[in-house]
């Protein structure tokens, strides 16, 4: 038998590949059920060792990343030609890879069910968008958001981030219902998120392999959150962040960056001093072939009041790093007339661009309402 992710030999019955850490069947099979037919190749057993399997998650996602020629030109409003340039002013239309949004569920004003709105934007200074995201709202009411920030100095990290986020999201959305009380779901989602991080890492490693193992292999950060009724389960690896922003009381940062900045603060210097240091953003954990530590940290919390889960890349929190600032931006967006989670997310990204947009910007928002909690009754 061989690993469907990296082609190395595996032992029957193992849950994960010893070589790449990729998840093995039956979970891979579950993933292929969740995805459309073309990802069947991922779980097909008996692949020839050494032969790269198609990176189906990546390819499918990329095929949807071209220019949407049905949208008018952003510069002058005229029609966009098939080659991606405006038919009147010649302005190059943004590709979906440079800017896209995802929306699920009812709008922010609705009283029931979670709602997701997310935006992934190239920003201004960078030539390409190495950030990626993936979101899902399942029939059972489970909300999943994933954000990955490709490492700009490593070429093709846009592919790693996209593959890692899509793979993670599909896997989490296909996770069978975790029954039981809050504590059971807390530990259940920990296992699922840790497993998802391994799969995401395997995707990033496999992309490096398919590119001929470059000396600077494509790599990315990773943060994933699941909203299961009153539970928010978050795991992360690197410096992309999750925040809980309740409507009334002060919010909190759910994640703690795996970065030199965090280590500086741990060693006693202030957050302001650390964030002013040029090495603050140097990450100490990431996904990819050259990662020294691709293991995630996990944090779960209970939703007791309505509020927003915000998951973002550093292109956003560089300009608003405290929960208070982010809450302020969300409230301002609503006051300015943003009616949906996606419009609010767009407003936050626009804020980051207005501050200079020095990095790619990804903002994913989940509107959480404890009253509309799903299947399981709340138990402490």
């Amino acid at each position, binding site marked *: 038998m061989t690993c469907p992710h990296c082609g190395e030999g595996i032992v029957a019955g193992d849950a994960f590949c010893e070589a790449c850490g990729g998840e093995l069947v039956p979970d891979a099979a579950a993933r292929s059920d969740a995805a459309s037919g073309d990802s069947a190749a991922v779980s097909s057993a008996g692949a020839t060792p050494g032969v790269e399997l198609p990176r189906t998650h990546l390819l499918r996602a990329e095929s949807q990343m071209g220019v949407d020629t049905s949208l008018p030109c952003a510069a*002058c409003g005229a029609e966009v030609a098939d*080659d991606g*340039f*405006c*038919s*009147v002013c*010649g*302005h*190059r239309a943004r590709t979906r890879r440079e800017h896209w949004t995802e929306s699920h569920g009812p709008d922010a004003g609705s009283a029931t069910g979670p709602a997701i709105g997310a935006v992934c934007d190239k920003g*201004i200074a960078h030539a390409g968008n190495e950030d990626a995201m993936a979101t899902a709202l399942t029939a059972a009411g489970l909300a999943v958001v994933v954000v990955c920030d490709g490492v700009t100095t490593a070429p093709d990290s846009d592919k790693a981030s996209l593959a890692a986020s899509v793979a993670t999201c599909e896997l989490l959305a296909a996770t069978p219902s975790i029954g039981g009380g809050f504590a059971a779901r807390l530990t259940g989602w920990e296992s699922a998120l840790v497993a998802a991080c391994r799969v995401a890492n395997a995707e990033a490693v496999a992309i490096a392999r398919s590119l001929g193992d470059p000396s600077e292999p494509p790599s990315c950060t990773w943060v994933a959150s699941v909203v299961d009724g009153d539970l928010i389960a978050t795991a992360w690896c690197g410096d992309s962040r999750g925040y809980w922003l309740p409507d009334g009381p002060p919010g909190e940062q759910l994640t703690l960056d795996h970065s030199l900045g965090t280590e500086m603060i741990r060693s006693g210097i202030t957050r302001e001093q650390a964030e002013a240091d040029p090495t603050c953003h140097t990450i100490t954990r990431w996904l990819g072939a050259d990662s020294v530590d691709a293991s995630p940290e996990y944090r779960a919390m209970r939703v007791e009041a309505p509020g927003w889960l915000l998951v973002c890349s550093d292109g956003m929190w560089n300009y608003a790093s405290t929960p208070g600032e982010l809450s302020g931006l969300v409230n301002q967006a609503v006051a300015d007339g943003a009616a949906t989670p996606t419009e609010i997310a767009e407003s936050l990204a626009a804020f980051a661009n207005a501050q200079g947009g020095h990095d790619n910007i990804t903002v994913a928002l989940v509107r959480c309402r404890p009253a509309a909690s799903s299947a399981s009754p709340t138990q402490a």
Partner: protein
Amino acid sequence: MAEFRAEVFQNEYLSDGATDVHGVVSVSVSGAGVAGQSPGTEAAEIIIVDTSGSMDMPPAKIAAARRAAKVAIGEIVDGTWFAVVSGHTVAQMVFPTHPGLAKMSDVTRRDASEAVGRLRSGGATAIGAWIAAATELFEQAPAGQRHAILLTDGKIEGEPAGALDAALANARGKFQCDCRGIGSDWVVEELRTIATELLGTVDIVAEPADLEADFEEMMRNAMSRGVADVRLRLWAPQGSEVMFVRQVAPQVDDLTPRAVRISPLVVEYPTGAWSDESRDYHVAVRVPTAPVGNERLAARVEVVVDDQVVAKGLVKAIWSGDTNLTTRIDPAVAHYTGQAQLADVIQRGLAAKASGDERTATVLLGEAAKLAHDTGNEDTTRLLNKVVDVVDVEAGTVRLKQQVAKSDEMALDTRSTKTTRIRREP
């Protein structure tokens, strides 16, 4: 089936506030086939031979013309509509004898060859009348590609001034015409005007003995042009200005004045029939500037056959603050800019020399010597060396030769537009 390819060479990066975008679009065809042989197309050929009185001085010229016409007839493929016209004070049918076209076959080829063997000289040179006659004959041909060869040895003097211009105005777009001047008593400017208007070539055949080989090659080229009518379609954004579109290889030919407006942002340039070949076009567009970080399409260049786009090249503009990117000049653009300048300074230099302004001629031809050297155009360097003595090629210093054969000057003039291709990095 003919396959077209278009490739763009440019530096798309512009500095903040810059507006001028340059690109070289290289278009090549393979599988062009044979003229008139693809379904639904027919080809027509007319050979116009100057039989004015001067063709007998020396008699070698008319003898060479007979042999050359015969060789050209031999190259015309079966099924092609054709005619041979003798040009003197009027245009006179040689073959067929009635004013019309014959279909090429073994029989007509033999009869036409015999007819050109009987060509005699006498009368004046009235090229306008010959062009007008060819236009009328082509109008009888079915739709398809139409090509003529025009041979003359003298300058127009048998018809009123303006007759040529009027004939060309009527002939434009109806056929292509390759022009040859035999000897050195003809006028380069007259034949260049005809070739330019009728999408053909112009060259000198100084020695009558060389005419046969030249006609053979010319007609063989014409027969290999299996794609009848190729147009270059250019889209440029609103608010932009097309500064110029010129063919830069295999020879310089300014297409700018031939633009036919199709819609507010689109123009087309006729380029005639194509064989398996490659032509390069230098496109320069002035576009409204955009902030740093923006990208805009400056020109969409499409190759159009039968109203179908068969190849496309995009010339882009990306505004950047990185001077490493914006200051680079694309090697193809630089090379062809130099080659176009070379043709221009040679023509202006020779015109100055002809008008007696030796000082200007010396400066311009010196510039030409430097440009030809810098761009590696060895053919032009060789032609220039027959007209000037180079003192310092790096500085562009030359002296006009005291004794210059007129045919050498004419060769330099007619061939000044021939360019060398840039060597592309593998």
